């Protein structure tokens, strides 16, 4: 039943997307808007198809940065969250620092990071990591603390070891929170990777989609800008879909978020 509801849920969104594209196409054709102002979706699709060989390496680069940063954010965020959960004092000492990192706009820090970190790739990774890190940390900390008080007592009653408590109680309790954080962090890592690359203004072979957009903008190749932009959006949607699927797989039968209504 849940699957049916979700399946049907795609339909309105697909209809809206199709209608928007159709309206856009019609507007461009009927008003005769030149492609250097606003290219029609059909032209963007053609450009995307034609330029795909030159865009794919950039796409791959951006995906690598995004997932590399995400991996670091998960490792760092979860690791630090476990430390926080074990010690309030460490949390009070370090949490403000994490907040400062979170609230400072990445565009403002990126130029500094690009100066201090020699390799551009590493700098991009650091930038994307900084934005993806906080939601994972914050959510996992809350999640680890969310374990039911009576269940904690039960574990105490039966003499659970620290390791048993972590593995059998704290980790499963934190899982829904962590997954919610991961979904947010996935999108943020992509944004971080693209924004940092804009700031870097890097050129050359080992660069991502942001550089392709910048280049196309210098040459006023507007359809190519849109084509690269479409790829960025596609990556974002794909990341969201993957983590949504993962959450459903992992929480499927037990968690209320996957079962709307009573």
């Amino acid at each position, binding site marked *: 039943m849940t699957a049916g509801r979700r399946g049907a849920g795609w339909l309105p969104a697909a209809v809206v997307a199709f209608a928007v594209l159709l309206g856009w196409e019609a507007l461009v054709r009927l008003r005769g808007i030149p492609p250097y102002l606003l290219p029609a979706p059909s032209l963007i699709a053609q450009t995307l198809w034609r330029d795909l060989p030159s865009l794919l390496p950039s796409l791959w680069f951006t995906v690598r940065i995004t997932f590399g940063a995400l991996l670091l954010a998960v490792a760092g965020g979860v690791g630090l969250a476990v430390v926080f959960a074990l010690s309030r004092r460490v949390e009070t000492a370090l949490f403000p620092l994490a907040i400062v990192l979170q609230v400072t706009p990445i565009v403002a820090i990126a130029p500094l990071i690009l100066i201090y970190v020699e390799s551009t790739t590493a700098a991009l990774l650091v930038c994307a990591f900084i934005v993806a890190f906080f939601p994972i940390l914050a959510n996992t900390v809350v999640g680890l603390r969310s374990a039911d008080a009576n269940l904690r007592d039960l574990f105490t009653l039966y003499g659970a070891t620290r390791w048993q408590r972590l593995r059998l109680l704290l980790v*499963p309790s934190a899982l829904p929170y962590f997954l919610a954080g991961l979904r947010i962090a996935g999108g943020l890592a992509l944004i971080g990777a693209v924004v940092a690359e804009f700031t870097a203004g890097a050129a050359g072979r080992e660069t991502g989609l942001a550089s392709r957009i910048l280049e196309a903008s210098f040459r006023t190749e507007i359809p190519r800008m849109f084509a690269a932009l479409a790829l960025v959006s596609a990556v974002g949607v794909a990341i969201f879909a993957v983590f949504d699927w993962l959450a459903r797989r992992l929480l499927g*039968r037990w968690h209320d978020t996957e079962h709307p209504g009573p």
Partner: protein
Amino acid sequence: MSGPAPVLSMRGVAVRYPNGVHALGGFDLSLARGEFVSLLGPSGCGKSTALRLAAGLLGADAGRVERDASARLGFVFQEPTLMPWADVFDNVRLPLRLQGRPTGEARDAVMRALAGVGLADFAQAYPRELSGGMRMRVSIARALVTRPALLLLDEPFAALDEITRQRLDDDLLRLWRDEDLTVLFVTHSVWESVYLSTRVAVLSARPGRVVETLEVTGPARRDESFRASEGYVRTCVRASAALRAAHA
């Protein structure tokens, strides 16, 4: 009370929480093997504190709490307190798992405990798929899976409807007989305490202590006819009066 050493004994116990609440003071209670004792009192009189003390989840600020070291312990909370991510089987297996018992040996114990509460067919179900009464049964099966000698229950059926509650009361009495349990049962219901217990201990207002103990005489096997008997009603009236006097 003379004779064999009590399974659980609390003498002159006092508990004061860091926030200043004086939960228990001069609390005396002793349970002999095979007894079914109810702690009766309104909310906030320290019943749960006494139970947590008995379980060793809490230390006393004064007095002595002694538990027969050979008596294994089972604890049933006010809520079912199940792990939502684990199915019924794994929930009931938890105590054995924490004690490092091998899976094969645990399987028989888990299935036996589930059969004891009439849920053998629900081993693969998840807690969210069960009714409130069934969840509480799972919770009881989990408490019994280690074959405890002493079972502590903290208002376990307070959130259930009357019919379900009476059914679980009867199940609990059956388990008490079949499993040779000593039971300490916390409740705010006069009717339930008298129906279940061999002895009802009435608690005072905070700081809680036992102000009156009522022996309940009744048939060895209690059922609906006991609920309608004169002895039952008379004991309920006495318990109510004691409760009112203690909380006037």
